[in-house]
């Protein structure tokens, strides 16, 4: 019985990873159309990708927007997470819920509602506008990551700093923020990742000038799946792996530092 569940689990994992494996396989297939099984090994679709100006431009836009979202989310989200950590307020739960709500809101509704607001403010097509709009998704990521880091920190830390004569600002900058830095880095990367992948808000808000990579890929998919799209998808997969590695490494560094500090 238990062995059977484990075998089912193995099949389940194969099902989970099947799309990723298939895309990687297709991207190195030299055939000019999507076919199975692959006829050989070639990187021609990747080099075609590098010569595609529209894709390169979209990648650049995506990077700028994602960095903006990550920065703005970290700047807004870190203090909020510190407030949540310190607070004993009755409203704490409700405020935490509000800060998290965009992650559970159907993206189409979020996108359409911001689109309506931006249309009346003539902000459609503005890069800053897109960064601000996607920060609704990045901010909860930062709040989550920083809250998780601070959850293991004794609240007396700040009181100790105050007793030793630190002013409020000093306590924040010299004590609390360094403690939260691991979570800030994780949150920054998570916010970057969620923006880099985001389709709906970008599609509604970016206009034609500011197309991000997901929007570009989406438009090309409308005309069908081509080998070049699978190469772009494979590149995206590898980029996701890279981001995941950054998150895992930064978390393990933070954990090790914490262990060192408690050992002291």
């Amino acid at each position, binding site marked *: 019985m238990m062995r059977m569940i484990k075998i089912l689990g193995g099949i389940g*994992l194969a099902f989970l990873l099947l799309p990723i494996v*298939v895309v990687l396989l297709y991207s190195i297939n030299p055939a000019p159309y999507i076919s199975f099984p692959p006829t050989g090994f070639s990187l021609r679709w990747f080099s075609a990708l590098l010569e595609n100006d529209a894709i390169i431009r979209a990648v650049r836009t995506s990077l700028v927007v994602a960095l903006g979202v990550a920065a703005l989310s970290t700047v*807004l989200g870190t203090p909020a997470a510190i407030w949540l950590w310190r607070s004993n307020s009755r409203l704490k739960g409700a405020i935490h819920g509000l800060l998290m709500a965009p992650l559970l809101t159907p993206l189409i509704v979020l996108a359409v509602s911001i689109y309506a607001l931006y249309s009346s403010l003539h902000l459609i097509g503005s890069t800053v506008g897109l960064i601000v709009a996607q920060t609704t998704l990045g901010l*909860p990521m930062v709040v989550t990551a920083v809250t998780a880091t601070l959850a293991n920190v004794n609240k007396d830390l700040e009181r100790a700093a105050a007793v030793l004569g630190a002013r409020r600002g000093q306590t924040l900058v010299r004590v609390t923020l360094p403690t939260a830095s691991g979570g800030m880095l994780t949150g920054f990367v998570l916010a970057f990742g969620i923006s880099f992948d985001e389709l709906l808000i970008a599609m509604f808000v970016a206009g034609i000038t500011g197309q991000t990579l*997901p929007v570009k890929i989406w438009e090309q998919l409308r005309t069908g799946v081509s080998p070049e799209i699978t190469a772009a*998808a494979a590149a995206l*997969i590898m980029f996701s792996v890279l981001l995941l590695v950054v998150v895992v490494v930064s978390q393990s560094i933070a954990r090790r530092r914490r262990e060192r500090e408690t050992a002291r």
Partner: protein
Amino acid sequence: MYRYAMRVLRDFYLIIRENILLLPALLFMGCIFVVPLLGILATALHLPELSLAAFRDVLTSSLYRKVIFNTFEIAFLSTLLAAFVGYPIAYLINGSGSRTKTALYLLVMLSFWVSMIVRSFAWITILGREGVVSVLFESIGIPGATDGLLYAKFSVVVGMANVLLPFMIFPILGSMESIDENLPKAAETLGARGRQVFARVFFPLSLPGLAAGCLLVFVLSLGFYITPTLLGGPDSVMVSQLISREVNETLNWPVAAAVSTLLLVATFGGVAIFNKVVGIDRLFR
């Protein structure tokens, strides 16, 4: 009078000062999240006149009713499939040694991280006419095995279950990890066989995670756009696609807003149940 005003001002100043760290995020969320959603609600209710005509249009039209039914049906089936596939995966991960456990956990994390567009359109190449499944079946002498599977409810359900699987696995795994290891052992000592230990001890203790995962996947399915658009056909249109069409093509804002409001109510109704049953903070840990 003057003193009273000063006191109010001073209290206000103190509140601001105490909560200065929260203020920027709160203002931001107010302007970019709450205000736009209220705008949608106002459009749906046709404020300032106040009329429920848009809701009536939505709920009386047979097309919209079909789409709403589709949405719940597809969300339900995707949740079911994700539960059947996700539970054994979580069980496998939970029962592995520490090294393997980390590796498998990272694989699930990876699939969670990879773009939803990529994971969705891959199913076109898997289930399509010249796709992986079709070719494999043909090689063992069953041609046309996948005819009619793509661009239909089947492909949407499979794709959504696949894309949302991590949201099922993580809560179940969390639940399994919090089970006291001594309990199954105690059951064994008392003479329970493997199957009994699982069915009478382990499985019931992991149920809160399974319930949480199901609710989460269901709620997220209701508003899904990418997968049904890429993998769906005319008989599997979901609510989110309808909203997009009303905004982009027919420019019927009141109806789009009314459908959005219904979707929001359904979603946050689900979230409220989730909160009652397992506590919303479990989700973000």
